C-alpha cells in the first residue's frame, strides 16, 4: 500500500514509457505483415498502405482494442489473489512490458520471426508463475489463449479457402469474368464493412459512449456496409477495361476490379490488427494504472481508461511513421506472387478471424493468422508456390518466444522488487 502511494507516479510514467515503446515496436515491425498482402498484390502503393495503416490501426486500437486489453490486464494473472500485495502486480506488468519489448528488439534485429502477442503472454505467464506462484496464473484462460493460437490460423485458412472457392465459382468460372467481377465485388465490399463493424459494435463501443442493442448493431453495420459498398461501386466504375491480346478470358481486368476491393480489405486488416495488438502494449499499462489510481485496490472490472487505448494507438502510429514504412516496403516487395483476388481472400479471412478474436478478448498473432489464410488459398489451388518452411518457423517462434519472454520477465520482476521493495 505504502509502496504504491510512495512511487505511484513513477510507476505510471514507467508503464507509459514501456507501453509506448512496446506499441512503437508493434507499429514498426508487426504492421508490415498485416499490410504485406495488400502491398504485395500491388493493389495499393506503399504510401497508401501507410496512410491506411495509420488511420485504421489507430481506429482499431481505440474502438475495438478494449476486450483484449482487459484479457492482458487481468485475465492471465488473477488480480484478485494480489489484494494484499498490489505492488507485485505493478512490478510484474512493468517487467512483462520491458521483457517483451526487449525480446522483440533482439528478435527483430536478428530477423527472427517472433510474435508480439506470444512475447507478452509468455512474459505475463512467466512473472505470474514464478514471481507470484503457480496458483496466481489463470491456467484455464492461458489454455484458451494457447488453443486460440492454433485455432486462429486454422479458422482463417478455412475462411480463406471458402472465400477463394466462391471467387472461383462466381467470377473465374463465369462466362464473362470481368462483368461477374463487377457485379460480385460490391457484395464482397459490403461483407468487409459489415463483418468488421458488426463485431466492433456488438463487442464494445461503450468506452466512447455508444451502447447499442444487437438489433441496432445489426442495422448500423448493415448501413455501414452499404455505405462502403457505395464508395466501392464508385471506385469500381473508375476501373478502365484493358483489352490485352494475350488475355483471352479477361482475367487481367478481373484483377483490376479486385484491386479496388483490396483497398477495403487492407483497411479491415489494419483495423483488426490495431484492435488485437494494441493490447499487447497497453494491457499491462492499464493494469498498472488501475492499481495506482485506486490506491492499491485491485479492481478487475474497472473500465480500461480510454486514453490508454489512444496512447497505444499513437504508439503504433509512431512506430509506423518512424520505422514501419521501411519494413512494409521490404515485406511488400518480397511478396511478388500474389494477385489481388488471392490477396483479398487471404486478407479478409485473416481480418475477420482477428476481429473475432479481438471481440472475444483473445490475444492472437496476426502474422500467424495471415499465414493460415494464405495457406487456405493455396489449398484451394490459388497459389503458384508456397514455401511451407514458414510453418516450421511459426512453431519455432512459439518454442523460443514463450520461454524467452517468460525468462526475461522473471528477471525484471525480481529486479523491480529489489529496487522498490515489496
Amino acid at each position: 500500500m505504502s509502496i504504491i502511494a510512495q512511487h505511484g507516479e513513477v510507476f505510471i510514467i514507467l508503464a507509459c514509457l514501456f507501453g509506448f515503446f512496446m506499441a512503437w515496436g508493434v507499429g514498426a515491425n508487426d504492421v508490415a505483415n498485416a499490410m504485406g498482402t495488400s502491398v504485395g498484390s500491388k493493389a495499393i502503393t506503399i504510401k497508401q498502405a501507410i496512410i491506411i495503416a495509420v488511420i485504421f490501426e489507430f481506429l482499431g486500437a481505440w474502438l475495438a482494442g478494449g476486450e483484449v486489453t482487459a484479457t492482458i490486464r487481468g485475465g492471465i494473472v488473477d488480480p484478485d489473489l494480489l489484494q494484499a500485495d498490489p505492488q507485485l502486480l505493478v512490478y510484474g506488468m512493468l517487467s512483462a512490458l520491458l521483457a517483451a519489448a526487449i525480446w522483440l528488439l533482439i528478435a527483430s534485429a536478428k530477423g527472427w520471426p517472433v510474435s508480439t502477442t506470444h512475447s507478452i503472454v509468455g512474459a505475463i505467464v512467466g512473472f505470474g508463475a514464478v514471481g507470484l506462484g503457480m496458483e496466481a496464473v489463470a491456467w484455464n484462460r492461458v489454455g484458451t489463449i494457447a488453443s486460440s493460437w492454433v485455432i486462429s490460423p486454422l479458422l482463417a485458412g478455412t475462411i480463406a479457402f471458402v472465400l477463394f472457392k466462391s471467387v472461383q465459382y462466381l467470377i473465374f468460372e463465369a462466362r464473362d469474368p470481368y462483368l461477374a467481377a463487377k457485379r460480385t465485388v460490391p457484395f464482397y465490399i459490403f461483407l468487409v464493412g459489415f463483418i468488421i463493424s458488426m463485431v466492433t459494435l456488438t463487442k464494445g463501443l461503450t468506452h466512447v459512449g455508444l451502447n447499442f442493442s444487437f438489433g441496432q448493431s445489426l442495422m448500423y453495420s448493415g448501413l455501414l456496409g452499404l455505405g462502403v459498398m457505395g464508395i466501392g461501386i464508385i471506385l469500381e466504375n473508375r476501373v478502365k477495361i484493358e483489352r490485352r491480346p494475350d488475355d483471352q478470358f479477361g482475367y487481367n481486368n478481373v484483377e483490376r476490379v479486385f484491386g479496388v476491393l483490396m483497398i477495403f480489405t487492407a483497411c479491415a486488416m489494419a483495423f483488426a490488427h490495431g484492435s488485437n495488438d494494441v493490447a499487447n502494449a497497453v494491457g499491462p499499462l492499464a493494469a498498472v494504472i488501475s492499481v495506482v489510481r485506486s490506491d492499491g485496490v485491485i479492481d478487475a472490472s474497472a473500465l480500461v481508461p480510454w486514453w490508454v487505448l489512444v496512447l497505444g494507438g499513437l504508439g503504433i502510429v509512431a512506430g509506423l511513421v518512424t520505422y514501419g514504412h521501411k519494413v512494409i516496403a521490404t515485406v511488400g516487395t518480397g511478396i511478388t506472387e500474389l494477385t489481388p483476388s488471392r490477396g483479398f481472400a487471404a486478407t479478409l479471412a485473416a481480418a475477420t478471424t482477428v476481429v473475432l478474436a479481438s471481440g472475444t478478448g483473445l490475444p492472437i498473432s496476426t502474422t500467424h493468422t495471415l499465414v493460415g489464410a494464405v495457406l487456405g488459398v493455396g489449398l484451394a489451388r490459388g497459389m503458384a508456390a508456397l514455401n511451407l518452411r514458414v510453418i516450421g518457423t511459426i512453431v519455432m517462434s512459439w518454442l523460443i518466444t514463450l520461454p524467452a519472454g517468460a525468462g526475461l520477465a522473471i528477471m525484471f520482476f525480481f529486479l523491480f522488487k529489489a529496487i522498490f521493495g515489496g
Partner: protein
Amino acid sequence: MVKPNPFSAMFGRSPFQPLLAHIVKASECAEQLLPFFEASLTGDWEEAARIREEVTRLEHEADNLKTELRLNLPNTLFLPVSRSDLLDLITVQDKIANKVRDITGIMLGRKMQVPTELAQPMRDYMRTAVACVAQARQALEELEDLLESGFGRHVSDVMHNMIRELHILEQQADSQQVAIRRELFDLEDRLKPVDVVFLYKIIDWVGELSDRAERVGSRLQILTAR
C-alpha cells in the same frame, strides 16, 4: 536493420514461369529445323552450320532453365500441382530440344541431303513435327490462365481441346512417316546403303519429335487433372 521477413519468405517463386520459358526455348529450337532443312537441300552447309549453332545455343538455354527449375523446387514448396508431375513435364519438354540438336547434328556432320523425290514429303513431315511442338507450347501457355483462375473449368476445357488437336497433329505425323518410309524403300536401291540407314534414322527422330510434343500434352493433362 531490415531483415528478410519470414512472412514474405512464404511466397515462393512460381516454378511455372521457368516452365513456360523452357517450352518457348524448346519450340524456338524446333523452328530452326525448317530453315536448316532448306539449307541442307541446297547444300549451303555454311548456313546450316550457322543454324546448327543457334540450335545448340537454344538447347543450352533450355537446359539451364531446366536446371534452374529443378533447383528451385525444394520439397517444402506447396504447389497447386504434383511436384513429381511438374518434374516429369520439364524432363519431357527438355527432350524436344535435345532431339532437335541430335537431328541437326547428324545431318550436318554427314552433310546429309535428302533425295529430291523425298524433299517435299520430308518438308511437310518436318513442318508437322514443328507444328506439334508449337501446339504443345500453346497448350502450355494456357497454364497461366489456368493458374489465374485457380484451375477453373473453362480454361482447362480450352487447354484440353488444344491437347486433343495436338494428338491429331501427331497422328498426321505418324501417317506421313509411314508414307515417307515407303517412298524411301522404293529408292533404296539407287542410294548408298549407309545414307539409307541414316535417312531412316532421321525420319525416326523427326517422328520422335512430334511424339515428344504429344507427350508434353499428355503430361500437361495429368498435371492439371484434379
